[in-house]
């Protein structure tokens, strides 16, 4: 698998004294499904914004497909790495959902037929094909979140970064959103999700990155990461309930992280 994004000793600060990223090195490969977790203010959003050139490191390099982000504009990079904001209301401004989704492709200077097709595909992917002419501001939060995803999908990016895509959604909305993300992953997109919901991490991610105070504390598959009790405690996160149950009930390693895996394990144990 080829490396899509490579961070090499990245440092960053908004203001002089306060270092928000402190020497982060990291490689993200084509087709991965990565979750970034960590406490409030640990630098997750800042890290993610380095991947599409919105922020350029004060020290170190970020390479996307082998090219240094310092040499490219955000507009160029956003064709490769798309970033979906935490709050969809920060980006929606057109009067119809279709126009909103077409905004990105239009900026790319694509011909009209290509734009139309991209918009249709993106709307189909998020399940809003029949709502193209509605006013986006009047739809529910879940739908607005999907519009935001569609509007970056239409630019056909290789990598999709989603910053807390399920915050404020109810359980159904959250499941729909995550199934959409899983579907995008299956279609070949590289996915980076920032989230505080460990159930989702356990359920969907292949790789977990733990951030703490601007440093990368731990990087590995979910089973490995969630077994690092001390690291998690330091990073202000905690393992999903199923894992904690397994630990408390004395279930053998590796302790499963999801309901289905736990069920299998317990029944397999055949008490």
């Amino acid at each position, binding site marked *: 698998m080829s490396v899509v994004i490579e961070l090499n000793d990245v440092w960053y600060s908004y203001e002089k004294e306060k270092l928000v990223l402190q020497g982060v090195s990291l490689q993200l490969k084509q087709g991965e499904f990565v979750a970034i977790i960590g*406490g409030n203010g640990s630098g997750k959003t800042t890290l993610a914004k380095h991947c599409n050139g919105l922020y350029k490191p004060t020290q170190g390099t970020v390479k996307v497909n082998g090219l240094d982000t310092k040499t490219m504009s955000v507009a160029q990079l956003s064709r490769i790495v798309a970033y979906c904001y935490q709050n969809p209301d920060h980006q929606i401004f057109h009067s119809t959902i279709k126009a909103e989704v077409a905004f990105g492709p239009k900026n790319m200077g694509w011909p009209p037929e290509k734009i139309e097709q991209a918009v249709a595909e993106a709307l189909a992917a998020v399940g809003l094909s029949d709502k193209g002419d509605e006013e986006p501001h009047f739809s529910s939060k879940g739908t607005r979140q999907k519009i935001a995803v569609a509007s970056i999908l239409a630019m056909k990016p290789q990598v999709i970064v989603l910053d807390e895509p399920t915050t404020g959604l109810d359980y159904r909305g959250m499941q729909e959103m995550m199934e959409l993300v899983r579907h995008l992953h299956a279609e070949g997109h590289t996915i980076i999700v920032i989230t505080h919901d460990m159930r989702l991490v356990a359920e969907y991610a292949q790789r977990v990155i733990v951030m703490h105070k601007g440093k990368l504390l731990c990087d590995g598959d979910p089973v490995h990461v969630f077994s690092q009790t001390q690291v998690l405690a330091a990073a202000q996160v905690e393992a999903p309930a199923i894992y904690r149950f397994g630990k408390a009930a004395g279930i053998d390693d590796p302790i499963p992280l999801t309901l289905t895996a736990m069920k299998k394990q317990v029944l397999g144990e055949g*008490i």
Partner: protein
Amino acid sequence: MKTEPLLRVNGVYWHYEEGAQSALADIHLALYPGEVVGVVGPAAAGKTTLLLTMSGLIPANYGGHFVGSVESNGEQGIVFQDPETQFIGLTVEEELAFSLENAGWSDERIEKRMAEVLDLIGLNSFANRSPLELSGGEKQRVAIASALSHSPQVLILDEPTSELDPVGAREVFSLLSRLKREKEMTIVVSSHATEELAAFCDRMILIAEGKIVLDQPTRQFFDQVDVLDEHGILVPDVIRLYHMLCQQGVLSASTAGVPLTVEELALYYKEARLVREGSL
């Protein structure tokens, strides 16, 4: 506990001026001193609307059509989802003093009350910091303290942890637990995080399309997996696992009801294993 209710909602209907249909319909409920009540429901079910009604902000602050009545024997403090926006003061101290200033308290009384409240939330050293510089969990704790500063009888919280990291959320819930334990505070909290509510609340309310569907003690409430599923409510994994294990005969249904925390389920599980091993 069954004394006079602190708050009673009698047959409330509420229709927002701009709303397509009633946001609340035929709501009856009574809140007794010391109760901790969780409110869950799918998106747009009317959770926020219900809490605003209990706090008196509906109908006072909104346009719309209101039927019924809310009787209250005391004051309410309310905390909203996004802590940043609800801060009025520029320092923690200003924030806590705001409601007391509006009530015209003297400096000595304000000072005394502020010290108490800061002590309660465990942020003594933060009095002169800007609330915007704190971590997510600390911000929300300040917001809670600010709602508590005029000593309300009922504390109402609307999704207080939805933007926090797991530890921040835990901080908030452990503060709420302290309030419940030490101050016997009456608390109403809405959330999508049912796992946290299950561990914390005495009583749960399920609201859907503006109507109360379930209003029961927590254990009974979470036993109704079918109803919760039907309304798209996340049944905590612990409870799902418990039901699965019971079905498979790994556990036998407990007389105490469904387990509400990881620890409870682990205990059941270990007991069942002991029984098994003993009988072998």
